[in-house]
């Protein structure tokens, strides 16, 4: 579309458009951002779906994620191999889910993944402690953290198993209208660079 060289075929762009919340232009811009991070690794030509992955270190240095306390978890939750390296598909997926257009339920599922540090499908006490430490930059004392953890589990745990399953989590965030309403900015595909 106006580029010297075709990055995606029309079919690919259609597929991206159908599977994400982005338009063609935004997909191309996202590719631009992806390419920028490692110009010598990422090819310009994506028509054959090359198997390229960028390591987590590069991705978490993007200005959108850099200051986020959960940046590693965000990237890990979207990476297919679990090590945090993202293929272009994963990259687009991440920004699609975090964009403003994504519905709440979808965001809730990924938010649960993000908060579930040890990937055991439950937010247990250890996960909560880690979340709290990241949120407060380890300013709270150990005693306060245990207290907060106990209270949180007491409040949100509905089935009484001592940890938060997805159902508990979903129920809890349904009470918080602000939850992820203002999610990560979609500046990624804005014209102006940050």
């Amino acid at each position, binding site marked *: 579309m106006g580029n010297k060289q075709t990055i995606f075929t029309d079919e690919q762009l*259609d*597929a*991206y458009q*159908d*599977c994400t919340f982005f338009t*063609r232009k935004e997909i191309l811009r996202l590719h631009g951002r992806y390419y920028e991070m490692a110009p010598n690794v990422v090819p310009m030509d994506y028509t054959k779906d090359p198997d390229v992955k960028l390591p987590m270190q590069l991705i978490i240095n993007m200005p*959108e994620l850099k*200051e*986020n306390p*959960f940046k590693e978890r965000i990237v890990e*939750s979207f990476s*297919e191999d*679990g090590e945090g390296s993202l*293929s272009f*598909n994963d990259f687009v*997926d991440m920004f699609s889910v*975090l964009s403003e257009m994504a*519905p709440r*339920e979808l965001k809730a*599922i990924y938010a*649960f*993944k993000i*908060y579930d540090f*040890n*990937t*055991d*499908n*439950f937010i247990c*006490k250890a996960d909560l402690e880690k*979340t709290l430490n990241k*949120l*407060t*930059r380890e*300013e*709270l004392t150990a005693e306060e953290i245990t*207290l*907060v953890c106990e*209270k*949180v*589990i007491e*409040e949100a745990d*509905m*089935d*009484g*198993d*001592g940890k938060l*399953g*997805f*159902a508990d989590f979903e129920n*809890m*965030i*349904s009470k918080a*209208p*602000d*939850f992820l*309403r*203002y999610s*990560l*900015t979609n500046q990624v595909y*804005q014209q102006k660079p940050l």
Partner: protein
Amino acid sequence: MSQPPSITLHVPEGTEGDGQEPSPDNERALHTSFHQLILEQSSLIEAGLELELQERGRESPAYLAIPDASAVTWPEPGQGEEHPSYSSASLQILASMPSRTIGRNLGAIISQYCNRTARLRRRSSRPPLQQLCRAARPSLRQYDLETDPTRATLEEKRRLLVKELLSLSPSQCSHMLLTMPLSLAEKRILRRQLSGQRGPLRQRTHHWAPSSPCGWSKVCVVLGCRGLWYRLLSLLRTAQPWHYALKQIGGRFGSSVLCYFLFLKTLLMLNFFSFFILLAFVVVMQAVYPPASVSPQPFTGLELLTGAGYFTHSLLYYGYYSNVTLNDPCTSSPKGSVCPLAVPLLPYNLPLAYLFSIGVSFLVTCILLVYSVSRSFRESVGSSTGDLAIKVFCAWDFKVIQRRSVKLQCENICTQLKELLVEQRSRSHTQSRCQCLGHCIVVLLAWVLALASVSGCVLAVHYFSEHMHMVQQEQQAQGSDRWQQEAILLVLPLVVSLLNALMPHLYNLLAMWEKQDSPVTQVYVAIIRNLTLKTMVLILLCYQWLSRSVTCSTEECWETCVGQDLYRFVVMDFIFTLLDTLFGELIWRLILEKRLKTKQRPEFDIARNVLELIYGQTLTWLGILFAPLLPAVQMLKLLLLFYIKKTSLMRNCQSPSKPWQASRMSTMFITLLCFPSFLGAAAFLSYTIWSVQPSETCGPFRGLETIYKSGKNWVLVLEKSNPNITWFTWFYQHLLENTSLLFFMSVALIAVIYFNIQVVRGRQRVICLLQEQIANEGEDKVFLIQKLHSVYKQRQMFLSPRDARSSVLLRPRDKEEDGGKCGTRAQREMTPRSPLCHLGS
């Protein structure tokens, strides 16, 4: 070998340790690896158990005989550990429970969505005929039972999901595909399979189009339209004004400050609608047919502040508009009775246009306001503050990306958590009666002081305006300089704005004195006090304008005079906002930085700023009848305000430290805009239209008893000129002017509201019952798992004698948990109850 026994029991920690190893997150590999992990874990547990038993056995042979000692060593249940006593088989079953595979296991997600799709399809009223093949049935039936992921392979599941998706309508199908929590690669595979079987949406056109002769053109048209649509969509997104600026603000200060700017944007939009309607139907018409002009006074520049002088006879004010009827075939007699019966063109009656434009613009504003109020209520309903869980998981504003603000946000969350903890602790031990009484007295005193200051302000404004009026008349009598005369007009708005600017600081002092316990109450109290002051002053001014007791009593055209007064208030409000920005933000920051050498910056006071916006908007609404171009002035003011506030914010401020729940706050702001502000202005204008006599020599309604009469006259004229629409006049006379109809309508409205309240209450009760049921089911689950475990153990006991010992070891703990931890649980398990049974009975 010296591993402490408790470690083997911490299953989650163990998984976490292994979870860091390559590819636990790989959707496909994960499920198997998870199983493997659990197998390993359980073998570890068993090994640990054996070890422990052996060690314990060595240490104290009598250990097994003392169940209490063993109970102590076991960690307390319900502290986050996975049930430590469960064996590998139980753990395996637990791991494959549906709730544990949500969002994690690819197969589980696919099956879940397949079920969901099937449900959606069954619900749709028109099942597609070609999808009713019998082949789908057995697998579907299998589907409902399917929770064990090993039964069907991934390929089969995918095929099934595709089949289900195909049976949906294309739009539903694409929506389903969009919202599935699958990875993009997986979605693309699904999409390819879908298009392979059907060619959804656009693919279909590709397939059949070239076969027909006119196909190509059709394809071109479709493709062209689609391209145009997408371009339009992207244009729309970029056409949103201030898109980038708002992102920037959100990124630095978070959603609460953003809420102020969004509010400003909403106001701008409302003003734009009013302005557009008035411009199109009144102002342009009047400008095209100008009345016999009075020689304009020379422009001096002070008019920009006072709105008098040069502006007096201009489109800005009511007095300039005439009562002409454009396109009128008959002579301009007041009743139009000399007209020929067949009127070729509909005459354009300017007074009517004036009345209807203002009515329609108020109606549009009302609809927009009610819509946004209801939407924001829907968003913020059910939200609760003081919830630790919500604070922990939902406090992070993902929009913030600037380093400094992120740090601030961390600190804010930290202090808020600490405050909440303190609050929860203090809730347990209440204050002594004496302290409570003292606090009550302080609060009461503060309120008395606040109300006294409000009434003092109102009285002061009243006497001051009378005094100023006397001075003005003296000046006029003396025939002094025009400059001086106009400058005197500015004094009253200046005083009112000064009061509005200074009183909030007094209220802040009061708030510091009374020391409210929760910051949210503090914010609400401050808002209520400021609002009372502003409303009271405005009510006084409105009274003075309408009764013409003080101001505008000597003018020949009192509407223009009121319009000028309101213009001055709007301009003065703007100037004071600018001064406030300059002194409260810029100078204060400089003082803080240069003098006090602190790194702190002034905070952006959202509540005060929003109240100022609401005040300005109220002035505009009050003045719209007297100065139809006031919305334009307000728009200009808001535009300037946006850029000035944004610049000042970026340079001088830091994000607020008070806990602001953005959605709750915006709900409150929009409600305030709707309730006292808009409704008050609407009441004021209705009163003016219905029962105040307009001036006799100027304006579109000259010579009429009330403005409303012009509408009545028009209906009469309509009846005479066009007998075909007598039904309209009948409708008007019998229904609109009839009070009993209004009475019945309000009764019906109240009944509807009452029913709705009852429905909401009923739903709340059902929600409570359902929550109780969830809690009960959780207990049932625990109970069943324990039963399963004990059965398993009993079987093991028969098989090997060594395990018997472990089961002996476990038994006392089970008992301890049942009896000791929660006595009620045991009772509940005995009589499992379901809240829905209560409902039924």
